């Protein structure tokens, strides 16, 4: 375990699984790992300055040979997304572009078509709705109290990236409260695809409206009301999808302007 003064260990076991867990895209294994890690760094899922685990360990987490991982890191180094320092306090460190930088967010959103955003929204709709309904049937009071604490923190969150992290944590914990490791894994993977796009440019009023919906969902889970819990979860996902579609269409306008 890499030990930093702060107590942070860089890429956590859960995020490594979410980021590296399903390598099924085009390209070599090394290219896929470089792409997934690069995506996670640009989205801010791995923070600037984080030290990545030692190569052998990261390779084991990704389920590839160390030499493959080394190739992937070399590609990221060329992109300037990681730097490797030698010596006693050395290691491979993340050099993230500021994820709240509007240009980066726009570039990421541009990589989605409206059809792809609708598909992603459908996937979230299915997973979040089912997780909320099952959590309402299965959650015990301690779990509901834990969900309510996250909603309180979301209400008090001061930045879009803090909102994103708490909102994602809430979705993951609702799937866990549904007692489903599969739905939990789906929520972690969805977060890896979407990152903080959902919270891009959210105003305090929009944050308050989102908090209201999520609180209503958690209240319904606590009341064992699966129909209402599902309905609030679905409404929340749909509102987010509409917002992303609106933002994406604005980018089309900007791109079409002379």
């Amino acid at each position: 375990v890499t030990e930093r003064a702060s107590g942070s260990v860089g890429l956590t076991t859960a995020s490594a699984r979410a980021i590296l867990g399903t390598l099924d895209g085009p390209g070599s294994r090394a290219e896929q790992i470089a792409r997934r890690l690069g995506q996670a760094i640009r989205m801010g899922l791995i923070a600037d300055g984080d030290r990545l685990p030692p190569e052998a360990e990261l390779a084991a987490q990704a389920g590839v040979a160390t030499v493959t991982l080394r190739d992937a890191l070399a590609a990221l180094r060329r992109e300037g997304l990681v730097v490797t320092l030698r010596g006693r306090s050395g290691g491979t460190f993340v050099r993230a572009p500021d994820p709240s930088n509007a240009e980066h967010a726009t570039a990421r959103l541009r990589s989605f078509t409206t059809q792809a955003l609708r598909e992603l929204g459908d996937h979230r709709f299915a997973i979040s709705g089912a997780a909320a309904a099952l959590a309402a049937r299965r959650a015990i009071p301690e779990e509901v109290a834990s969900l309510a604490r996250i909603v309180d923190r979301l209400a008090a969150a001061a930045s879009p990236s803090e909102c994103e992290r708490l909102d994602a944590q809430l979705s993951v914990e609702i799937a866990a409260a549904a007692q489903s490791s599969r739905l939990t894994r789906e929520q972690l993977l969805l977060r890896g695809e979407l990152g903080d796009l959902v919270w891009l440019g959210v105003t305090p009023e929009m944050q308050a409206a989102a908090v209201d919906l999520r609180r209503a969902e958690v209240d319904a889970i606590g009341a064992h009301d699966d129909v209402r819990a599902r309905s609030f979860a679905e409404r929340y996902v749909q509102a987010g999808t509409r917002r992303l579609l609106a933002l994406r269409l604005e980018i089309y306008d900007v791109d079409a302007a002379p």
Partner: protein
Amino acid sequence: VTAALDDLTGALDELDAIFGYLEPLAAQFAAVAADPSLARRALHPLRPVIQDLLEQHRGWLAGAGVICAPGLLRDVRHWMDWWFTGPDGTPNPLRVNLDEQSVEFFDYTEADWYAVPMRTGRAFAAGPYVDYLCTNEYSLTLAVPVRAGDTLVGVAAADILVATVEGHVIAPLRAVSPQAVLCTPAGRVVASATPEHAPGERIDLATAAASSLPRTSPDATRWLLLR
């Protein structure tokens, strides 16, 4: 039915024996923690103990480790040294964010496998729950409080997959009754002899006739039987 009940409590005794397996680890942790200026490095000698534990009880344990009470170490406020058996059978270190300044901070003091033994001073079986931070499996965590002198310095704990428990209890449970269900005191189903219930589902204990099982050890899972 009496013989089947004996088999069931026998299977649970095997599970409860894990509390005993944790004793050497707890004793070593306590010995290390007696040092008032303890740093993370001082916990390294516990790693072979943890790995031995995982190796010796490979059939039962999915992970094991120690969790420090906040403020125990001088170099970081929160810390845990946790290992889990990877798909290849070798121990992997768990990485969680324990930096309380970070928004990704994992506050284990809210997890009942830490909070309950620290509050009560007694062994505790937490779960079943989805262990999404570690193995992403449906798991139990058996935890014992660790004392150095009069002070609780943290917990020593081990993870058991609910699938493993099912392998041991389902046959006696079916023999007890085709309606038998084993659940936690919160009503969460651990194993069920009937398709009417499944692991992870919740039973409303206000309307169900659940009885406690005879347990011999004070450190024992306090699960309930419905039949």
